């Protein structure tokens, strides 16, 4: 380690300690701090690809399946770029979306319709609607940028056998379908999410998302194998399984263009 780096670390430690001693961090500051740490802990994957399987289940237990593919390109200054490609149901095979997430303002989004080979710029303001008839809303599946919420730390607790920090999150975008979310960050395992509770615009409990089957990739990035979203108001649930995770896959920014979107749905 270079001496200059040591000095910087020492200085920041001093400032940090002085800060904690000088004044107690407010709940809002602590909440934001946790979200930033979680974001920082996952930085550096560059790009990732994963196969998804979605199982939709209604109250009567009737099932319906969807297969998707997701590609993500990490950006630090602005939000990530991502592509979702639909493989099933067969009648929508080849349909694909391209999203440029922004830290401020609305995301840019394009939809590819393979039957008529049309790329359509679509509005990203409709984020609260269901994704493919599932219990996941579009906003639940978009890249979690720190700037998209304001925060309030609640308590240190546990989820199952895991230690967790409960943080209230208030969406900045008024178009969000939620008044708030309570996210449970695991402070002992890279601030990975263990659970999120969603509250509708009136503040009533709406859904719970539980993460399970966590694996650590490249000694750094925690990814769950399974998301379970339960809607308490309708009794419906959606399971989302992740398979074949790969990181630093050599994807370039050109792989997230409209041409690439057409090729993905070819």
């Amino acid at each position, binding site marked *: 380690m270079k001496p200059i780096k040591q000095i910087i670390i020492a200085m920041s430690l001093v400032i940090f300690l002085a800060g904690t001693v000088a004044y107690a961090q407010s709940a809002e500051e602590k909440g934001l701090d946790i979200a930033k740490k979680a974001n920082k802990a996952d930085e550096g994957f560059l790009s990732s690809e994963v196969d998804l399987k979605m199982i939709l289940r209604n109250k009567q237990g009737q099932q319906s*399946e969807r297969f998707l593919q997701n590609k993500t390109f990490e950006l630090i200054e602005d939000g990530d770029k991502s592509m979702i490609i639909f493989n*099933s149901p*067969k009648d929508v095979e080849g349909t694909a979306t391209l999203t440029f997430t922004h830290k401020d303002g609305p995301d840019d989004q394009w939809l590819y319709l393979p039957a008529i080979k049309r790329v359509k710029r679509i*509005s990203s303001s409709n984020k609260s609607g269901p994704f*493919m*008839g599932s219990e996941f809303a579009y906003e639940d599946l978009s890249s979690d940028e720190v700037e998209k919420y304001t925060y309030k730390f609640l308590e240190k607790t546990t989820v199952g056998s895991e230690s967790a920090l409960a943080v209230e999150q208030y969406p900045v975008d008024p178009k969000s379908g939620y008044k708030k979310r309570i996210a449970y960050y695991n402070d002992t395992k890279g601030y990975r999410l263990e659970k999120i509770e969603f509250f509708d615009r009136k503040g009533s409990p709406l859904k719970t998302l539980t993460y399970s089957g966590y694996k650590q990739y490249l000694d750094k990035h925690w990814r769950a194998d399974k998301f379970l979203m339960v809607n308490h108001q309708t009794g419906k649930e959606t399971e989302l399984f992740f398979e074949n995770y790969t990181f630093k896959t050599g994807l370039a920014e050109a792989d997230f263009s409209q041409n690439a979107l057409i*090729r993905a749905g*070819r």
Partner: protein
Amino acid sequence: MILTVFISIKAGLAQDKITPDFQLELQIENRHFLKEGLYPGQERNFFSLSARPELEWEWDDGDKGIKVSLFGRWDQHDDRRTHFDIRELYYQQVNGNLEFSVGLKKIFWGVTESVHLVDIINQTDQVESFDGEQKLGQPMAHMSYLSSFGTFDFFYLPYARKRQFPSSEGRLRFPVAVERDDLVIDSRNEEWRPSGAFKWSHYVGLLDVGVSYFHGVGREPLFLDLQSEAPGLFYPIIHQAGLELQATTGPVLWKVESIYRHADVQDFTALVAGFEYTFGNVKSSGIDIGLIGEYLYDERDELAISSFANDIFTGVRLAFNDVQSTEFLAGAIFDLEESTKVYSVETSRRIGSSWKAEVEARIFEEVAQEEFLYFFREDSFIRFSVSKFF
């Protein structure tokens, strides 16, 4: 060039990294016309079957690939609608920002919903779709270059394809059942008269823009007198400049498409401009309601294969976002000068996991004698289809 493509394919096939993908759609369809035909020999009810197989090979992480997409239909009465086409058959290669394809391909240009003015690369499959969204495969060499100033597309189109028209038993035809080969291309090379096209498209923030230029064989035939025994239809050599604009502001999409087309016998501009407003997830029901309004202007008078000279299109789109992906689109085109009205409904719903049902209706009301649509004034129809996907 062909040799390098061939070597590349061979090298790809030699590796076991090739991922083949097969899709197939089989469909049964019934089109029912609400009234008897105007012209002798026309039938009222048409049962038909169609198949759409697709095959795709990819290798080198998807940087190289071959796509084949075929279409065939058998129609109970209309032996011109009984047809087969190679929609796509091309090799594609990607090198970073450069994409190169050669073969039969389909390219869509445009942003609006009611008409597709700018869209010109492919010939319309006239017997297949009333709205012109089904196209014939177009032979081409296509190069696309991605830069920080937008995307540049270059097309070399060595061969022009003519439209197929319904047979005398068919509907949505002229008084004389026009044969495809009765129409000539205004060039001594006929179909082998090459065409070329260029497009620049870019996106900055909420704005998407496209500027295009096409020179070669016009895709729309011109007619001199359709009432006569010799209608004198031909495909002119044209120059066409096109503009596409879309601004995406919150729930509203603002759209403009415009063309200027020049031929020896014709010179005109056409424009369509409008908006699409989406009320997303209405009352947390999951349902999206979209309202569409577009104004259509076309300078052409009697030479137009289009009836939308000064018209308004209004439409409602419902997306239920349910497990069965239920969708519904209803629209109406009103002529601002004449009495003509065209109503349309398109709706679809998945059944189980691999079936899909569709209903389409087109209703023509009070079609004015001055309009091109006057030939089809008795041809209001309802189409019902069920597809199975493999």
